[in-house]
């Protein structure tokens, strides 16, 4: 044992220090010795079933599996010992006995750990000439995953992922002996939100992607790292492009954010980028009412005319903009145009994010995702994370099951977290605030006694259109009472960046109170409908589909105001625009997304945008130029110079590090490797080497003991891209501006108020696959979208004389409509309706403060 409590281990003759108890395969990998493996995956627990990683440990009679051997002081390991190499060769020969070797038509071919390791560690020939075991090939076990059991090497990775990480055991090993095979149960589909991860971790081509099936081979692909553009978790991804078309995205591991995983929406929802109907040229509405494709000059001139109206201009920005876009929008609106009316909250309209300032110096999270693992208690008040922030759901699950955190869920309806929550506090759709207060003072039937420190309080806006002030204020009160950290979960990939950069009516960039608070999205839409605004600039947003009052949004856009839209797809809002600018999508651009823990992560472009489409920040800069103000922006760097100069909270961001311009070369390289430099260390050193533009471009193509596997190299890349969280101080500044104190006191229980025959209180929330403009362009995800339904309390359903699965009648915009009822754990008197269902948008029903819905027997 060395002085610092570390174990000294000798691997292949080189001494290294490691925490005692760490897994040998990891320790060896960090010093650049690659031990072949199939079943071991750093994100899963070791099972040591494939026996590929056998190594020689001095003093042990038999070879030991490196993936299940903890290191101890004085251990001496030889991974290239004759006996070990012989065992590895033998294992590979065994694995190939029943392998169909149909690499030429296998989607994994070219980036397959089995191929790679057979070259590097295999015997080179097989003595087996008898017939192989066969199964039916290419079983479609879901709309996303294709299974080929012949190729499976029974490593259990997919099974362990489903069991340990996702918690939905849709896929299992069945039968025994030589008939052991991977299957789903009773031909049920592989109906997981995380199924795509099994495709990526399967070390062979047994699980392949259906949307990507036979679309490309790995050597055709151009790849670049990026960040998922959907939710605010911000999972890093690689985007793979073939012949100018985005054909695949895969998870890029970042242990701070997503570990190794993404959800299926992030993984398969990329088809919108290469969709045929992308906007590719500016459009200007002509006098007779039709759009005409024009050049940028004319469109900018027309737009500038409409924008030069000072405070009679309203600016609405959507959640899929990058941090740079957000800064540009804020600068354009607040400085160049000179209007305080800027908001970025559409679906989460009215969410009081600025209340977070009472707790810390930021209108955002003070906790990181890694804090969840260290918490003793986690309180979750918000939407169903599995539906809206899927990878956060995985992180919460990990915190509870692996790190023994106590999870208290306060929610008006049943949700995914209930399955492993320590306590579930079921409340009215408006009663969360009361329930959370109960956690603070022990009143009400809440498990206040179980609230222990350190605590992480999580909140996100759950039901669009609802006033969330009281709920969030109560969560902050709870956090303050425990001196705990807050995880604030705005909905979209860019939401937090928009708040940070001051695309917010009551805050300027860096969370400074705005001198003149502007109008919120709702107020702007109302003003536009009433003719009090001359111009609406809508950047990357579709209020008609997303704003929780579709009718108001329609009236606003139909009103007298000129509507300027910056969009990537032809949405309903675009159809009502007067000037439309085409925007670049996430795979086509540079920039950063700020995730819900305020972590900035960099996107790299991998393909050009269609036509003359470009980044929204560029469009803003051009609009500013048309208004006579030259910002002098030329690219990512100059925008960041400006941000650093003007946004105090981001002044210390190291742009070079964020952009990862100078990382070290890959470590699994026999010639270039220096023992003792860990990956983390070399990343920090950051000198020399060029960042591989694709995961294959950096691969040293050589056989031998240290040949990198495609996915291992990807993991390495990711370790160099941790992202950066701007520094912040604890200590809030109390209630400041905008919305006042939480005024709504405890309300009486809903069931008591509602009389039979009254309309039901409408509560809504997003589901993972919906009719959103982006995700609905992936046909596979559209196919597995849930059919329209509403959730009701069993007694309410009984009162209507109906039962689970029956159809009820509801009224939408004056017209009757039938819809399936699902009986659920939701408070009596309330109806839950998913927000954006096929043919039924809940925002058509949302009006006023207390939205209701009439449900009757058809």
């Amino acid at each position, binding site marked *: 044992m060395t002085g610092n409590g570390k174990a000294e281990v000798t691997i292949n003759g080189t001494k290294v220090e490691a925490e005692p108890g760490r897994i040998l395969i990891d320790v060896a990998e960090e010093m650049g010795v690659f031990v072949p493996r199939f079943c071991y995956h750093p994100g899963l627990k070791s099972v040591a079933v494939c026996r590929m990683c056998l190594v020689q440990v001095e003093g042990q009679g038999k070879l030991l599996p490196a993936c299940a051997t903890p290191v101890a002081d004085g251990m001496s390991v030889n991974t290239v010992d004759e006996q070990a190499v012989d065992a590895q060769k033998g294992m590979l020969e065994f694995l190939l006995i029943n392998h169909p070797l149909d690499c030429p038509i296998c989607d994994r071919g070219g980036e397959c750990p089995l191929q790679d390791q057979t070259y590097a560690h295999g015997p080179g020939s097989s003595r087996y000439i008898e017939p192989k075991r066969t199964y039916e090939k*290419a079983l479609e076990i879901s709309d996303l995953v294709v299974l080929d059991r012949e190729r499976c090497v029974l490593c259990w990775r997919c099974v362990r992922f489903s069991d340990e990480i996702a918690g939905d055991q849709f896929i299992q090993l069945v039968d025994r002996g030589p008939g052991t095979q991977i299957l789903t149960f009773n031909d049920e589909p592989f109906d997981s939100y995380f199924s795509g991860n099994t495709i990526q971790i399967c070390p062979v081509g047994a699980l392949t992607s259906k949307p990507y*099936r036979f679309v490309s*081979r790995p050597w055709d692909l151009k790849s670049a790292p990026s960040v998922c553009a959907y939710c605010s978790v911000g999972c890093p991804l690689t985007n793979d492009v073939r012949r100018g078309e985005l054909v695949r995205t895969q998870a890029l591991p970042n242990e701070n954010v997503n570990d190794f995983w993404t959800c299926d929406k992030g993984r398969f929802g990329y088809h919108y980028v290469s969709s045929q109907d992308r906007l590719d040229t500016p459009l200007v509405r002509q006098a007779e009412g039709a759009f005409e494709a024009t050049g940028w000059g004319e469109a900018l001139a027309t737009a500038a005319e409409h924008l030069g109206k000072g405070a009679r201009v309203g600016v609405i920005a959507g959640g899929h903009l990058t941090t740079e876009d957000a800064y540009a929008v804020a600068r354009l609106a607040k400085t160049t145009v000179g209007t305080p009316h800027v908001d970025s909250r559409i679906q989460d309209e009215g969410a009081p994010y600025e209340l977070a300032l009472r707790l810390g110096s930021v209108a955002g999270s003070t906790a990181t995702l890694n804090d969840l693992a260290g918490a003793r208690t986690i309180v979750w008040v918000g939407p169903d994370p599995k539906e809206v922030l899927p990878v956060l759901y995985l992180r919460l699950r990990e915190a509870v099951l692996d790190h023994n955190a106590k999870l208290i869920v306060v929610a008006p309806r049943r949700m995914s977290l209930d399955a492993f929550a320590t306590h579930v506090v079921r409340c009215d759709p408006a009663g969360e605030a009361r329930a959370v207060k109960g956690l603070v003072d022990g009143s009400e039937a809440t498990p206040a006694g179980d609230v222990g420190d350190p605590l992480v309080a999580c909140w996100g806006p759950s039901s669009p259109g609802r006033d969330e002030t009281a709920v969030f204020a109560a969560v902050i009160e709870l956090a303050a009472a425990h001196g705990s950290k807050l995880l604030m979960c705005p909905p979209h990939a860019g939401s937090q960046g928009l708040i940070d950069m001051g695309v917010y009516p009551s805050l300027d960039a860096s969370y400074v109170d705005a001198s003149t608070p502007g109008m919120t999205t709702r107020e702007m839409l109302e003003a536009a409908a009433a003719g009090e605004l001359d111009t609406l600039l809508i950047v990357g947003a579709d209020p008609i589909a997303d704003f929780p009052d579709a009718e108001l949004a329609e009236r606003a856009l139909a009103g007298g105001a000129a509507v300027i839209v910056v969009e990537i797809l032809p949405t309903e809002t675009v159809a009502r625009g007067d000037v439309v600018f085409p925007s670049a999508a996430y795979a086509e651009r540079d920039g950063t997304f700020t995730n819900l823990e305020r972590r900035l992560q960099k996107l790299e472009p991998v393909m050009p945008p269609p036509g003359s489409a470009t980044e929204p920040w560029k469009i803003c800069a051009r609009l500013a130029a048309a208004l006579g103000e030259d910002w002098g922006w030329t690219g990512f760097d100059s925008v960041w110079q400006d941000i650093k100069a003007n946004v105090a909270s981001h002044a210390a961001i190291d742009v070079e590090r964020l952009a990862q311009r100078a990382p070290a070369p890959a470590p699994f390289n026999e010639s270039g490797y220096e023992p003792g430099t860990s990956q983390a260390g070399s990343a920090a050193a950051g000198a020399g080497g060029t960042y591989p533009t694709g995961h294959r471009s950096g691969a040293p193509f050589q056989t031998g003991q240290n040949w990198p596997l495609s996915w291992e190299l990807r993991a390495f890349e990711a370790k160099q891209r941790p992202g950066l969280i701007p520094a912040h101080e604890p200590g809030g500044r109390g209630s400041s501006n905008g919305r006042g104190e939480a005024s709504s006191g405890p309300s009486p229980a809903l069931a008591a108020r509602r009389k039979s025959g009254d309309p039901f209180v409408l509560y809504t929330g997003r589901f993972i696959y919906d009719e959103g403009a982006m995700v609905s362009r992936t046909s596979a995800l559209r196919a597995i979208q849930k059919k329209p339904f509403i959730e009701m309390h069993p007694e309410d359903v009984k009162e209507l004389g109906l039962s689970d699965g029956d159809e009820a009648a509801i009224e939408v915009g004056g017209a009757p409509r039938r819809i399936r009822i699902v009986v659920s754990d939701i408070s009596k008197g309330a109806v839950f309706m998913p927000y954006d269902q096929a043919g039924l948008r809940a925002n058509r029903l949302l009006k006023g403060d207390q939205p209701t819905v009439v449900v009757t027997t058809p």
Partner: protein
Amino acid sequence: MALPEILTGMRTVFKNVYKKKETTAYPEVRRQPFPRFKGRHILDRHPDGLEKCIGCELCAGACPADAILVVGADNEPGPRFSPGERYAQVYQINYLRCIFCGLCVEACPTEALLMTTEYEISGPSREGLVFTKDQLIVDEPIVRHWPTEKEYPPEHNLLKELEASRSETDAVGGARNAGDQRLKSTAASGRGGAQS
């Protein structure tokens, strides 16, 4: 002083001036290439008429000139293109890029891709020199190359089958030439894409 050198040089010159000329009056005289000459490609079929090409893109991956484009697709149930799961939906060879190295033929795991001795590949347009699948694929299977005894252990019964089929093919005889001949005639009668 330099005379010997000059004489040696001139000797080479005169030797070549009076040698039999290798050049021919092309196109009036067309030379017969060597049998293994690497010319324009074809895509072969199985005896049952299915395409041998499985759209695996290995040829494209092997090509040093990036001359081949293959886009694979699933064989849908019903009439299929190739025996396995995958077939080539798009198959193109760009003869403006091809350097006739034959690496693609070596890479092909199904012996679908072969090279003929046809060397007259030129045309009036760039697009016309990108040969598409319908131009490359043959109508009738072409019989060629069987594994040698070295490639299979003698006791393996597959060899006997092969021997049997080999005598059959001998009977067919000259099929390969027939294939080339046919290709030539298509070429002469206007090479579809070359003019388009």
